[in-house]
Structure formats: structure tokens, C-alpha cells
């Protein structure tokens, strides 16, 4: 179990290591610290959004050992030692991931609040199922609520990515 450290006021904290986007952070957190807040406030990774904070909207989605989870329902101590991917870790070598580019190309982003979670859910889908049909795409993003786009462009963007129909610079 994570090492516990009690400060002079008697507050207990736990020394945990979060491997976020390939970067290991060893940090102190209280038992009641929620992963979303630790990512945003302690690691400054504010791409992970907070909406409902109760597991309904998916704006806090991160990949935990490659699988999408709602980080608002995960204690930071529970993620000790695990691999976390946030939206900041999706870009590679300074280039947008194909899904991100495709979302831009398809105008699948309006206010953008759902987008980080949406991209991570789509990315996890394409990793386990590189050629999903529309139904599978809709299922995979069903835990990501978007109040702006009506989903049609998002679904098209994901399908276009799967079908290799993403052109880099046509936005």
C-alpha cells in the first residue's frame, strides 16, 4: 500500500506514483482526493474536464491502463502505480492524433467541453476495434454527453478515422 505520511497537524497523506502520459509523478494526496482534481490542480493537466462529477457525463474521462473510466469516481490513491492517459497525452511528436484531426475536419467540436473525453473514448474504441461500425461508435461514446453537436459529426469523425479518411490539413 502507498506509504502514509502524517503531518504535524495530524493530517494523513499518501505517497503515490501516477504514470500520466508516460511521465511518472510521485505526489502526496489525501485519501479523499479525487483523480480528476489531482490531475487538474496538482499536475496542471486541465484538459480533463469536470461536468456532473457523478459518473453521468463523461467529460472527466481518462484512460486507466488503456481503458476509459470516469476519473470523477476514482480516488487518486486507487490509481497509485497505474498508467493514465489524459487528453494532453494523445498528441504524438507535436502532431494531433488522427481522431483529433478528424474531429476538426468534421466540425465535430463546438464549445469543446465534451471533446477531451470524447476523443479518449473514441481512441480506446479504435485501439480495441480498429474497424467499428456506426452502432459500435455510438455505443463507445454513449457515456460522453455532448450538449452542442447532436453527435452526428462526432460519429462521422470517428468513422472517418477508422476508415483512414483523415486528411491532415484540410481545415
Amino acid at each position: 500500500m502507498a506509504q502514509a505520511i502524517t503531518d504535524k497537524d495530524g493530517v494523513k497523506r499518501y505517497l503515490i506514483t501516477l504514470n500520466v502520459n508516460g511521465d511518472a509523478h510521485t505526489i502526496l494526496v489525501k485519501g479523499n482526493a479525487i483523480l480528476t482534481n489531482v490531475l487538474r490542480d496538482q499536475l496542471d493537466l486541465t484538459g480533463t474536464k469536470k461536468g456532473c462529477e457523478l459518473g453521468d457525463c463523461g467529460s472527466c474521462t481518462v484512460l486507466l491502463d488503456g481503458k476509459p473510466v470516469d476519473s470523477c469516481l476514482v480516488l487518486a490513491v486507487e490509481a497509485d502505480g497505474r498508467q493514465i492517459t489524459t487528453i494532453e497525452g494523445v498528441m504524438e511528436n507535436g502532431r494531433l492524433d488522427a481522431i483529433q484531426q478528424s474531429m476538426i475536419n468534421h466540425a465535430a467540436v463546438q464549445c469543446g467541453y465534451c471533446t477531451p473525453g470524447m476523443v479518449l473514448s473514441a481512441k480506446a474504441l479504435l485501439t480495441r476495434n480498429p474497424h467499428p461500425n456506426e452502432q459500435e461508435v455510438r455505443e463507445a461514446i454513449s457515456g460522453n454527453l455532448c450538449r452542442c453537436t447532436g453527435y452526428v459529426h462526432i460519429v462521422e469523425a470517428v468513422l472517418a478515422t477508422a476508415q483512414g479518411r483523415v486528411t491532415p490539413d484540410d481545415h
Partner: protein
Amino acid sequence: MYVPDFEYHAPNTVAEACAILAELGDRATVLAGGTDVLHKMKVGKLAPEHLVSLKNLDELREIREEPGRVVIGALASHNQIYTSQLLQRRYLSLPMAAHTMASNQICNLGTVGGNIVNGVPSADLPPILIALDASIRLTSAKGERTMPLEDFFWGSAQTRMEPGEILTEISIPDQQTTGSTYLKFGLRRSGALAVAAAAVSVQVSGDTLHAVRIVLASAAPTVLRVADAERSLIGRRIDDELLAEAGQFAAQASRPRDSIRGSAEYRKNLVGVLTKRALKKAIDEGHA
């Protein structure tokens, strides 16, 4: 949203977890996937002094075949159940029930153990597990006991769990059933709790039913097995009329309440329709 503070424990073995729980008694709450525990803590319905996390008990995540039974560790996630090739091959109805549940994000966190221990009548996994005659193993510092899952629930969110106990495994015995299925009606296809649902298992012999189990979700203060409906089917020639009649018995036995998900009257009606269709599906399609 604020989460009240607590003392955190993450034991490395079941024995260690039991020792901690024995010492803390009802001051401790077990934490599995946390989708209910953290939800309740955030909305102010739960403020445990101690949380005992099961996250290090990897042996409770396993789904395996043993002589005479299939064993599912209590920490198996809904997505693990949905994607288990073993379960898909043996009892496809169970992965399909897991697939009716919440979003992918919740299904990667939530566990079958948490779904059972919660004790709520809307939980999606207990009905099909009871239809498949599953039993559970409860472990504590005092020892172990097993009981049919059916006997575990007894009132609104009431279970026979004693303080200090951990649900460690769910066991599905090898059986004579020829089919089983779980039919759920939710207001959306994804991420919605059941307005009503019916799980059935059947043992077809010739053109009659030799054995049948019918278990309802979201139809009473607790998960509900409907014996009258089951009895009405045994030994009689299977036809649509017979199945509709069993649906009527199930509807009569159900005691849903008016809720935001539907009026009591509507839900009762749904029970009848879902029971009839579930029976037909299990008879025609096997474990589906």
C-alpha cells in the same frame, strides 16, 4: 464535489482485509469499483470513517471454469463479464446482461460484487445470476459461508451481509437448463437503469418445460423470483398463450412503485410483456 475524509486501507490479501474489517466493524465500508460508494459520499449519503479498498486482491478479478461450476471473482468488472469468452460460450445471457448496463466508463470500474452487495432492485446482474442458480461465497475473519444468491436479498436494499464480511466469489453450477436470457427495458438504450426487467432460465424437454426460473428487476422493493408464474408453465405444452399467461402471473406478483422511470401500472404491464418475451427467447435461442 466534496468527498468527506476517511482513513484509507488497501490490504494485500483477503485474510488481511478480513482482519481489518473485523477490527473496524461497522465503522468501515468496503470499496470495490467505487461507482456507488463515491457517488453516495459525494451526494452526502455516506461518510464512512474508514474505507477498505479491495484493489490489491487480484485473485478476486478472475473468471474461471472449475469442475462442476463457473466461478466469477467478486471484483470482475462489468466489462470483464461482457468480454469474457468463457461466459460468452457457457452463459451468453450474463455478458449480455452486463452489456445493458451503464456507459463504458462505468462498466470498466463497476464490479459484479458491488452490484450484488448494493442490494438495490434495479441492479442488472442479480436477476440473471439467480436465474442461473448462482450462489455466493462470503468470507470474514470468522470463516466462510456460501448461500444461494436468491437468499441474499430480503427487502429494500437489505441483504444478509454481516459486518466484517467480504463477498469473494459468485459460482454458477453446471446445469440442465437449455436457455436463459435477460430482457431489460430502459428509457434509453445505454446508461439507463431498468424501468423493469425479467431474467429467465428454462429447461425445455420435448414440447414442454421441465424447469423454469423467472426473476424480475425493478419490479418490487427487492429482486423478485415469481414462483406462481414458474409453476404455471411446468409440464404444459409450450405455446404463445401459455407464455402470455405466465407473463400475467409475473405481472400480478410484481409490486413496482410509481417513480420517475414509470408509473406502477405501466411497469406492471411491462413485467408481463418482458416475461413473455424473455421466455420465448430463452426457449427458442438457448442461452442468449
